[in-house]
């Protein structure tokens, strides 16, 4: 039985009170005295050369305060990419400049090339319409294969073949992999598309720049998952503002899913405009604008091959992928298809030989970057689809082919052929749990019921693993990452015994204010209600790397544990002084410091008070105060894993797919708040169902976005998804962090798409459509029907 409010308790979320009463404070809710409003003018063509921009008429419009263009930002730097990836031949990747506002050329529909600031938003928008731009339209580069084939038309002149890098992982494996394929008894080949998605956090991005001409300080309120990274990018790369003159505040943030990790040009632009006008400048993105400017996700075209023997033992895996970068390299764009994708291509399997090739391609589309799962869903999808196809070709049961290839529980730590060391896991256990929860025995009866309604029932299985808790700075540094990926926490015990915990992680739905308080309550033996979590303000919190990649608990949570250990150590020193005992004799248990073997003790509150009222301290050996900071840089990634099962009903007449059962069995290591973990899985699964059945960004050949609103981009709605059965009772604790936690945020988005597609293919096979070996996502009714009848 977990302690109330402690580790393992499904504590209700404290942040809910403000969200349920309309008291949340999101960036768009913040209004600063004297603020003006910004509106960005965005390109209507996918590719064009800017001949001239005439802003004179706009400047004369009512309420207009300033009009800025790319010319105003030629003196500042570009928005960099965070990872430098090396090509197979050893060459460093190309890194075309990404300016604050487009300059010289516009490179995608929605590329911002001018900014109007006015007294009201509508005035700014009116004035944008009065800007006269002469843009020479160039042929749009939309299709990746065409971009690679025709190098005369370039997105960036400095990227002469539209290919940023040609990456081999691991290049030294290549010959052995090719040799394994040459002698393999059976090879299964699958070509597939991992569809481009728009993240669609429900809160559109917003930023307010606030320059103080009195002090020269800048403040940026913005919708960010990691305010320190945003500050670092603006300071060190884009604007050159010293970090100690720039505060970045990410207040309540309405979801991120990756799209708010990155620094966007709008943030720099509102800061520059605020300085120019000496007034706060606010920008709030419309949803239509978000479709054209928030980083998209996925967009891989892949050929995957699996070599096996005739019993289904995996011998080798080989993939070739074109990964769409869009028109500019977003901050994490280059690591997503490489180190978050290629390194996972072993999956939970003991395949001896694996080789991954990825070409990153520039196109005249919105930049693509990490979206929930980031690279790992792409790897899992390719692998789990080709495995099902191989099982079908070999006549082996999908459960059985996975089981016989799993890394066994006694093989950990397990070094994969693609560079990772899995510390622990038990893939048999999660798949067995899934089988139990899925009521496999009852499937035939359910299929008969479906048939009576004219529906085709199918079951799809997938297993997944991810590397998360991103992660060791040593490792990512070797791989080309330009930042460290530790996290940090400060525990400030106040004089009256309550505690402020200032954390580098950022909460935008994850419930950190509740969960982190549970950790501290358990560790320090205090009431969770006396613990406040502070996040999102660089002027308060230590330098942390924010929240993405399911890292908050594993990395920032571990930093908190480390800081708490320091608090306990310091408390012991204070207690030793107060109790006139040797420090080594002081024990800390459940919130009190005592002298071992005696009943002499001081409560946590007494120690805290003493720390701030140090009337008789031996100041040479004991500092006043009770505040400690720790940075935690993990030794390895964490490796959560699981197995997902999906049951669908297909309407053969319309091609419509209904998900009727969905079951997840995950191993997240130790779980702090089961209620929140289940919620994370639900949300991830819904996004996975969205990718599998509904969502897909579509461009026409001119580079016009056809899915520019919820009228055409199909978001999962309440009636698109079933209730989910989720289980996380299989636990192999992470071996290298103090919590034994692995991370759960991305699981659903990773494991779900192949389970859904495998289920639909299974339904079609059972109905005799055996020629259908694959349908690309999203499996819309029209695509499914066309596969059956086309």
């Amino acid at each position: 039985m977990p302690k109330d409010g402690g580790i393992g308790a499904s504590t209700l979320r404290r942040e809910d009170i403000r969200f349920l009463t309309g008291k949340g404070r999101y960036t768009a809710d913040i209004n600063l005295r004297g603020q003006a409003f910004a509106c960005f003018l965005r390109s209507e063509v996918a590719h064009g050369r800017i001949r001239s921009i005439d802003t004179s008429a706009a400047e004369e419009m009512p309420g207009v305060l300033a009009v800025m263009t790319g010319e105003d930002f030629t003196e500042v730097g570009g928005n960099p990419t965070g990872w430098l990836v090396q090509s197979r031949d050893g060459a460093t990747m190309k890194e075309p400049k990404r300016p604050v506002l487009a300059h010289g050329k516009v490179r995608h529909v929605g590329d911002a090339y001018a900014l109007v600031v006015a007294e009201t938003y509508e005035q700014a928008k009116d004035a944008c319409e009065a800007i006269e731009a002469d843009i020479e339209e160039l042929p749009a580069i939309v299709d990746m294969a065409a971009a690679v084939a025709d190098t005369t038309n370039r997105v960036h002149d400095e990227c002469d073949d539209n290919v940023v890098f040609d990456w081999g992982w691991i290049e030294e494996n290549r010959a052995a992999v090719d040799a394994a394929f040459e002698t393999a008894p059976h090879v299964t080949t699958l070509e597939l598309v991992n569809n481009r998605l728009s993240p669609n956090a429900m809160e559109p991005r917003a930023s307010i720049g606030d320059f103080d001409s009195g002090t020269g300080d800048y403040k940026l309120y913005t919708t960010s998952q990691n305010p320190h990274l945003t500050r670092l990018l603006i300071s060190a790369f884009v604007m050159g503002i010293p970090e100690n003159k720039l505060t970045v505040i990410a207040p309540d943030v309405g979801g991120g899913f990756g799209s708010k990790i990155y620094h966007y040009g709008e943030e720099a632009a509102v800061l520059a405009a605020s300085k120019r006008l000496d007034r706060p400048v606010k920008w709030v993105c419309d949803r239509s604008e978000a479709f054209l400017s928030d980083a998209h996700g996925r967009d891989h075209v892949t050929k995957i091959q699996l070599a096996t023997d005739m019993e289904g033992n995996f011998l080798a895996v080989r993939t070739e992928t074109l990964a769409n970068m869009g028109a500019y390299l977003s901050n994490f764009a280059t690591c997503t298809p490489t180190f978050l994708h290629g390194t996972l291509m072993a999956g939970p399997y003991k395949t001896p030989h694996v080789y991954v090739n990825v070409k990153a391609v520039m196109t005249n589309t919105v930049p693509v970057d990490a979206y929930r799962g980031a690279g790992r869903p792409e790897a899992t999808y390719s692998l789990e689809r080709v495995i099902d196809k191989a099982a079908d070709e070999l006549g082996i049961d999908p459960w059985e082919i996975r089981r016989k290839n799993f890394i066994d529980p006694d093989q950990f730590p397990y070094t994969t052929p693609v560079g990772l060391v899995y510390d622990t896991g038990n893939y048999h256990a999660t798949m067995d749990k899934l089988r139990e929860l899925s009521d496999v025995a009852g499937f035939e009866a359910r299929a008969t019921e479906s048939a009576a309604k004219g529906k085709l029932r199918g079951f799809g299985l997938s297993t997944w693993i991810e590397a998360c808790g991103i992660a060791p700075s040593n490792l990512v540094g070797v791989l080309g990452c330009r930042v460290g990926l530790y996290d940090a926490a400060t525990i400030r015990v106040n004089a009256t015994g309550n505690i402020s915990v200032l954390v580098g992680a950022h909460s935008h739905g994850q419930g950190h204010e509740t969960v982190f308080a549970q950790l501290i309550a358990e560790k320090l033996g205090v009431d969770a209600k006396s613990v406040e979590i502070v996040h999102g303000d660089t002027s308060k919190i230590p330098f942390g790397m924010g929240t993405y990649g399911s890292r908050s608990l594993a990395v920032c949570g571990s930093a908190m544990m480390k800081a708490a250990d320091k608090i306990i150590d310091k408390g012991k020193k204070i207690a030793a002084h107060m109790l006139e005992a040797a420090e080594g004799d002081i024990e800390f248990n459940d919130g009190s410091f005592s002298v071992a073997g005696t009943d002499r003790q001081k409560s946590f509150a007494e120690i805290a008070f003493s720390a701030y009222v140090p009337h008789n301290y031996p100041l040479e050996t004991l500092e006043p105060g009770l505040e400690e900071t720790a940075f935690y840089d993990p030794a390895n990634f964490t490796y959560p894993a699981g197995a997902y099962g999906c049951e669908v009903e297909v309407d053969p007449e319309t091609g419509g797919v209904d998900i009727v059962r969905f079951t997840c069995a995950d191993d997240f290591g130790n779980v702090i708040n089961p209620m929140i973990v289940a919620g994370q899985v639900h949300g991830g699964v819904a996004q996975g169902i969205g990718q599998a059945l509904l969502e897909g960004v579509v461009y026409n050949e001119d580079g016009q976005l056809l899915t520019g609103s919820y009228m055409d981009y199909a978001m999962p709605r309440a009636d698109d998804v079933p209730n989910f059965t989720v289980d996380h009772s299989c636990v192999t604790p992470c071996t290298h962090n103090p919590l034994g936690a692995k991370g759960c945020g991305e699981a659903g988005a990773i494991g779900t798409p192949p389970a859904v597609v495998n289920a639909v293919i299974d339904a079609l096979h059972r109905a005799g459509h055996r020629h259908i070996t694959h349908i690309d996502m999203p499996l819309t009714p029209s695509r499914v029907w066309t596969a059956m009848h086309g």
Partner: protein
Amino acid sequence: MKVTMTVNGKAMSAETEGRTLLSSFLREGLGLTGTHVGCDTTQCGACTVHVDGQPVKSCTVLAQDVAGRSVTTIEGMANKDGSLSVIQQAFQDHHGLQCGFCTPGMVMISAALLSEKPNPTEEEVRHYLKGNICRCTGYHNIVKAVMAASGADSQKLAAE
């Protein structure tokens, strides 16, 4: 033009243009920022409020067009003593929210459903909520919260 309407039981006024949307009137005119705007095509439902007891998407209603009417927003949903109403409490109890952005709209549409139909089936809940998009929860816990609230005395739903 100055527009007055009854908002959460009190007469409130703000200056408007013809084009001022009810959502802007509430957020900018009255400072009631609990009503959120998540799209511009009347799809997402984050801006849902009640006008004379009916749910509407306040981003697609002109403020002047509902002058004089009675509007309830998320800020008016708690009990008089400030405690959470049954529907709000059900959302907390069942973890029916994560980032909180769609939440005001979800609470308003759920309250409308329960006043129209106090004991809906799960299917009816999912159908009624289809004009409100949530990206975080996968709807599982939202549906659970509404079902739980429906089991409660409907008189205890937010005062309208």
